[in-house]
């Protein structure tokens, strides 16, 4: 029943959101892009100019390594989150409505836990003096308590913890709309529960899985607090360095250049996986 917009008032309804987004999103982001070409003034700030120095500085093996690490970390977080959340959400959607509601309220509430506190919570849980390793000692798995944070594992744990509820919430609609008879039919055809999960549910929802992976990936790429709170400097991501440059070094042009680069990289990864997904679909 869609019609072509005609009258002024038809257009007015999109005018407001479009205007808001232009003014308050496109312009600020445009400023950042402009700043990324400005001239850095050593020991001070920057001057308007049009130079590529900031991009040139970024193109070193050092930053390449960090970019690689950031992408790898974000990808790993996305994969682990989805690996955990997918079967979990599948089970969740098959539970009684009441149970679902309890879990959903719980997960939504975890969302309101601030990042600092997540970092603090996990650094405590992974610490030598008050952490989980003491429990492991108590049950005799470990000889003496050990410090598990900061470490790569701690960063992963914290980030997966943070992304897990989002992942569940993103997967939830697709999984709960999945036709249960697909699994039942697979069972009448001889697939056990695990097998039918793997070769029916997972492939049938491949597109949802890909888009969820992308979403978590993008989210994790922007994460700058947890790697600092739970990781060693070698686990810092590009977002941490961007924050550093912008805030501690007052080097906005360089920070902006790194950010533009990061956005480009994540957008192209997103585009590639979407293209790939499309192709698979068409085949």
């Amino acid at each position, binding site marked *: *029943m*869609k*019609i*072509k*917009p005609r009258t002024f008032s038809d257009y007015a*309804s*999109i005018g*407001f*959101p*479009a205007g*808001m*987004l*232009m003014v308050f*999103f496109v*312009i*600020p982001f445009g*400023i*950042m892009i402009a700043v990324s070409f400005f001239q850095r003034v050593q020991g001070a700030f920057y001057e308007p100019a049009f130079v590529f120095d900031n991009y040139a500085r970024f193109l070193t093996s050092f930053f390449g390594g960090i970019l690689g690490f950031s992408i790898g970390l974000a990808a790993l977080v996305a994969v682990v989150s989805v690996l*955990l959340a997918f*079967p979990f959400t599948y*089970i969740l959607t098959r539970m009684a409505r009441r149970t*679902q*509601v309890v879990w*959903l*309220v*719980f*997960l*939504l*509430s*975890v*969302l*309101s*836990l*601030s990042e*600092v*506190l*997540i970092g*603090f919570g*996990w650094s*405590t*849980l992974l610490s030598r003096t*008050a952490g989980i390793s003491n429990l492991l000692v108590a049950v005799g798995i470990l000889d003496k308590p050990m410090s598990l944070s900061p470490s790569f594992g701690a960063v992963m744990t914290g980030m997966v913890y943070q992304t*897990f509820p989002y992942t569940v*919430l993103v997967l*939830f*609609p697709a999984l*709960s*709309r999945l036709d249960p008879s697909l699994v039942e039919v697979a069972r009448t055809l001889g697939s056990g*529960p695990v097998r039918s999960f793997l070769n029916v549910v997972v492939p049938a929802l491949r597109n949802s899985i890909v888009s969820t992976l992308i979403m978590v990936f993008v989210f994790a790429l*922007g994460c*700058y607090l947890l790697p600092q709170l739970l990781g060693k400097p070698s686990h810092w991501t590009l*977002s941490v360095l*961007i*924050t550093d440059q*912008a805030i501690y070094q007052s080097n906005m042009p360089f*920070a*902006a250049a790194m*950010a533009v680069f990061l*956005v480009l990289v*994540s957008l192209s990864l997103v585009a590639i996986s979407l293209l790939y997904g499309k192709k698979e679909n068409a085949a």
Partner: protein
Amino acid sequence: MINTFILRLFLGTIALFMAAPLAVVAGVSFNERKSLSFPPEGFSLDWYAQIFTEDSWRSALFNSVGVAVGASSLAVVVAFPLAWFLWRFHAPWARIVQVLGLAPFILPPVITALGFLSFWTTAGAYGQAWTVVISHGIFFVTLPLVTLTLGFEAVDDSLVEAAATMGADDRTILRTIILPLILPYIISGMAFAFVLSLNEYIVAYMAVGFTVETLPIKIFNSLRYGYTPTMASVTVLFVAIAVVVFGLIARFGDLPRLLGAWRHDDDS
């Protein structure tokens, strides 16, 4: 039948995993001394009292809630006409606006923050309390946009057409049919934006960090001079508020449905 033991183990592990940091934070909030020791030393509710008795925490709490209310309302106000337009009209170019609405969430938050910093200083409004409301409103517009788009899709076209045959024009239809039907989606989009705004740090910090101290900023500032259990108790309070808010939504609406499940019962 699925092996129920493995199933329970899996669910239990997830529950434990999700609850563990909450438990630490909650435990710490009961410390008797001003320290974030865990397990807690002694028991005291002072830190909860402090949220309300100490001016700076209380005002930070109110600031945060105020900003979150404003920002989530703004996000809805921006998202609603956009989602409505996309649903009502056939206009391919409007997709561009839709992508703009989805984009803020995709950028790294630092960049959004710096962009806003430059923007507000250039605009000469830097430091005004309302700028953070707009910044957050735009930053989180994606959430109501997504839920509202879902919601509009769920409105049966024939309801609108039926109303038209009975003499309702666009505006009347919007008021008497669409709004009541879409209300749950408005609420859930707003709730998401609200909760995220409540916890957002870097954008708020860059936009108005020095004039309006929101809770995350307050927590950060106190990070510099020693964790205080108040930040844990505030967090516990937040989580409790979230439980109540989402619990109410679940009680009066159909939460799974709002989150995207089809409604199986009650087919009309």
